[in-house]
């Protein structure tokens, strides 16, 4: 074959490059159809031999909500707080969504062993799919919450809507970052599952869901403990969600105690969470090269 021929041949051909798909999160968005199938698969497998099926995603939060409502409201006595069911519910949605993504996301790569060993999948698919599965469960809960606050005379102002959007954005980005990083760690060290339980527990108690931010503020007077408390992205997302759903149900919205400049904190937190996603993606793609041999 002549040199000219070879050159002409090579030009019409795809380039010679390292095999495998290392396009990361962007690759995931380019392969939406596969992502959709993975999410469907996940939902299918989770509820396959289950009698109540998807109803569980309503039953579990409902039971949890009622427990909080009764124990926190009547036993501990938070019921004097105006609109306290909305205070609990709007926080609980965020915390549950985060914990669920954390648990499912951490296992997402190890559980899909046989798919991970197959070629040409950007492996970010798997943690991404767990974020979407959570969304599938959480969106109906938001609908329920919306109906509830509507009945309670919810009149959101502009800042409330901004807070709502920020809350969801922080929740999604932070969950994604955590799912990415932990799913990769979990391939190497199966401790991650114990770790996630611990974090889920900590998050439940370090966000103003079953108590109020007012109680924190009263006891800390803005000292460093409060500042640390406010560094928790889930806590910020919870308070933004409460700003959106709980505060507008109050007779006098000014009585709902929240941190100063909550929306500004939200914006900064969102920027930080985007940086976390970037960092988590870096960690993931670094660790990813060893997935096939460690699974």
């Amino acid at each position, binding site marked *: *074959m002549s040199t000219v021929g*070879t050159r002409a*041949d*090579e030009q019409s*051909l*795809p*380039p*010679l*490059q*390292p*095999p*495998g*798909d290392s396009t990361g999160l962007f690759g995931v968005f380019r*392969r939406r*159809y*596969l992502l959709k*199938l*993975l999410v469907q*698969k996940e939902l*299918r*497998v989770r509820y*396959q031999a289950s009698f109540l099926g998807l109803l569980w995603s309503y039953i579990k939060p409902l039971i949890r909500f009622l427990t909080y409502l009764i124990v926190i409201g009547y036993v501990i006595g938070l019921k004097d707080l105006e609109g306290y069911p909305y205070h609990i519910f709007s926080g609980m949605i965020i915390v549950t969504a985060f914990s669920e993504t954390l648990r499912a996301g951490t296992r997402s790569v190890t559980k899909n062993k*046989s*798919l991970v*060993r*197959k*070629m*040409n*999948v950007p492996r970010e698919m798997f943690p991404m799919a767990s974020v979407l599965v959570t969304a599938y469960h959480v969106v109906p809960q938001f609908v329920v919450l919306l109906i509830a606050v509507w009945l309670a005379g919810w009149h959101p102002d502009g800042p409330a809507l901004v807070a709502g959007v920020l809350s969801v954005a922080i929740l999604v980005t932070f969950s994604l970052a955590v799912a990415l990083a932990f799913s990769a760690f979990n391939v*190497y*060290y199966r401790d991650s599952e114990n770790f996630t339980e611990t974090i889920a527990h900590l998050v439940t108690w370090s966000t103003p869901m079953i108590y109020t931010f007012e109680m924190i503020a009263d006891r800390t007077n803005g000292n460093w403990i409060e500042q640390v408390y406010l560094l928790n992205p889930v806590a910020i997302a919870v308070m933004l969600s409460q700003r959106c759903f709980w505060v507008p149900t109050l007779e006098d919205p000014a009585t709902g105690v929240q941190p100063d400049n909550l929306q500004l904190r939200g914006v900064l937190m969102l920027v930080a969470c985007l940086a976390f996603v970037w960092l988590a993606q870096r960690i993931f793609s670094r660790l990813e*090269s060893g997935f*096939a*041999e460690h699974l």
Partner: protein
Amino acid sequence: MADAIVCESVSKRFTLRESRTLKRRLVARAHGREANRSFLALDTVTFTVEQGESIGLMGLNGSGKSTLLKLISGVMRPDSGDVLTRGAIAGLIEVTAGFHPQLSGRENIYLNAAILGMSETEINRKFDEIVDFSGIEKFLDAPVGNYSSGMYARLGFSVAVSAESDIFIIDEVLAVGDPPFKKKCIRRIKEIRDQGRTIVFVSHNTTQVQRICNRALVLEQGVLTFDGTVKDAIHKLRYDDEDDVDAEGGEL
């Protein structure tokens, strides 16, 4: 012709037994031992495959064939050296890879085809053809976990051959198929070869390699020791030596 696969002093090292726990690591350190022992599964392997060639990859169990295929398909990365490929890769590296036991055969076909990069319309178009080739229509809606290993192989192979790839790799999946299906597969692989696509075929079955491949590579304990005609490769491996089936002790 253009290169389809280029391997340039490719090495892959595996840890034999990993001591990942804190306790074991501390104990190992206290005894002055290294915590993780490792060995070279592939040792500076260098070769080039031209487009349209069909390569037989041969060697005894544990010689590194599957590892090399995993590097070529991009599932694993080499520790040192470069693996370069041109165009899309499809095929089967493990019989059960890509299947989800709790999903039905139908769902698994969609999932696997999507993993191989097919779009929804493409899969819909090829679905009947895939099912037809696999010959498992009756069990299409049963969970794949209940399939026999031959049925796994049938399903996997049928999906893999339906993808339009430039490089096609097969790792011993034909071993579990029954003779009629094997025959069908060989015919299909030959078609793929005749379309000018590149094939890397791993098999211990010398007849199959002879019928499909025009060149053979032999791996011995991770080292590429032979690159030439299939006939000479078989001779080198002594696979043609009937009395000496137990040839491991020999020159190998």
